[in-house]
């Protein structure tokens, strides 16, 4: 159907949209299944995996630390301001803030920053490999591109995201503690006592599970868009943008699903 026909007929428009969505979803799921199959049936390429892990961790670490520090400051100051305004008392702030940091902020800020950095990088790299026929060349040499390209990135990103989110959580809590001490008048001891009352060990486990899932999703989405990159000058750019948008949305939705699931365990 032509674009004009589609605009005139909303039912056709919705139909075509649905068909395209189903087709893309199926292609994505196929890629996920193939990747998992390669992951469990073959040993990963060690050197490439370590290189990718270095790429994930090294460049992102300082950006993430920088951002979570600011997130901690804002969380503390804002919640204190509003608590004081409403109930004239901000004694709950240290406890609430540490809970929020561990359950949400640490993992999600890490994941979103990783998406914009390594997710975009992977989509662009694989997309340009596709456009310049390198992926075809791999196939001609009998090399499985999923095993060769996606599996190392998947492992590196998953490990990297878990490690980075643990660091992000620690730094974020530490920054919150300093803010509490300097601006709100709660000593470090008081902060830690409050934190211990609110936070359980399982919160840390759940935070790591979240980071694991986010780290798993980013390379899959990026590599999917890279592999399906259109030829032509704008192909790689489009694939990169789309991969960042989709991975970010996927992370937010996944965060909701995981938080909802974990709420049964609290």
């Amino acid at each position, binding site marked *: 159907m032509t674009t004009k026909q589609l605009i005139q007929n909303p039912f056709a428009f919705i139909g075509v949209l649905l068909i395209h969505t189903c087709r893309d979803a199926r292609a994505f799921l196929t890629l996920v299944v193939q990747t998992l199959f390669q992951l469990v049936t073959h040993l990963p390429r060690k050197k*490439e995996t370590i290189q990718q892990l270095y790429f994930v961790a090294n460049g992102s670490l300082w950006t993430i630390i920088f951002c979570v520090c600011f997130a901690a400051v804002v969380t503390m100051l804002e919640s204190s301001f509003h608590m004081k305004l409403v109930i004239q008392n901000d004694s709950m702030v240290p406890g609430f803030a540490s809970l929020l940091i561990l359950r949400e902020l640490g993992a999600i800020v890490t994941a979103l920053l990783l998406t914009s950095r390594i997710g975009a990088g992977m989509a662009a790299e694989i997309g340009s490999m596709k456009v*310049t*026929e*390198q992926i*075809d*060349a*791999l*196939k*001609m*040499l*009998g*090399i499985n591109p999923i095993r060769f390209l996606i599996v190392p990135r998947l492992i590196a990103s998953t490990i990297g995201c878990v490690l980075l989110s643990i660091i992000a959580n620690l730094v974020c809590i530490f920054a919150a503690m300093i803010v509490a001490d300097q601006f709100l008048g709660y000593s470090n001891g008081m902060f830690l006592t409050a934190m211990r009352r609110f936070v359980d060990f399982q919160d840390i486990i759940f935070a790591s599970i979240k980071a694991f899932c986010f780290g798993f999703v980013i390379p899959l989405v990026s590599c999917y868009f890279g592999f399906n990159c259109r030829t032509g000058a704008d192909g790689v750019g489009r694939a990169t943008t789309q991969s960042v948008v989709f991975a970010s949305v996927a992370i937010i939705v996944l965060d909701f699903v995981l938080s909802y699931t974990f709420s049964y365990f609290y």
Partner: protein
Amino acid sequence: MIKYKNLVKSFGTRTVLKGIDLHIKAGEIVFILGTSGTGKSVLLKNTVGLLRPDSGEIWIDGENVSGYSEEQFLSIRKKCGMVFQHPALFDSLTIYENIAYGLRKHFSMAENEIERRVEQALSLVNLDNILSKRPGEISYGMQKRVSLARTVVLQPKVLLFDEPTTGLDPVTTNSINTLIQSLSRKLNTTSMVVSHDMQCALKIADHIVVLDQGQVVDQGTPKQLLESEVPLVRDFLEEARNQ
């Protein structure tokens, strides 16, 4: 050796190959000429399963490969080497590793034998002293020649070249054409060469096929093509004469 029967390939609503019928005999050098965007690259990629046809059949060495799975194509891809239109070298590997990769993958060879073969393949394309460089550090023309060496080093029975000499200087172009010719004469390799260059097609091809808008508009020996009445073929001949 290779037979296409009514091959059709579309992308979305656009039909690129509209029923190709061709027969390529073993040991022949076949040139495929055509204007940009007529589907020459698509034809080659269908042959080795990098793209799949919508309908029609492809026979290679007596096997109908049209319905083959990715695994079944592995043996076909060992038999048929392809030199892509882009150099398509792996950026993360050195030139040496790029060429040696296939040898390591397909043959169990001693390292010094691999080294010897790699150097031999590079000298075939007039290159030396670049073994430890990365693809990004050499010129585009050199990358194209390395990519040729990477395919030729495996000594496949069938060689598919997608514009092997586009963007190269006349001297190198000549030596690559000689290389294609000598591979075919010495090793009895079957070659399909996609090209825009009628002049060299007339010189070294055994058979020339002219494609236009996804269809074969004319084919025959160089001699037969010189007599052709098809306008596009006449244009190509005219162009070759003016060079």
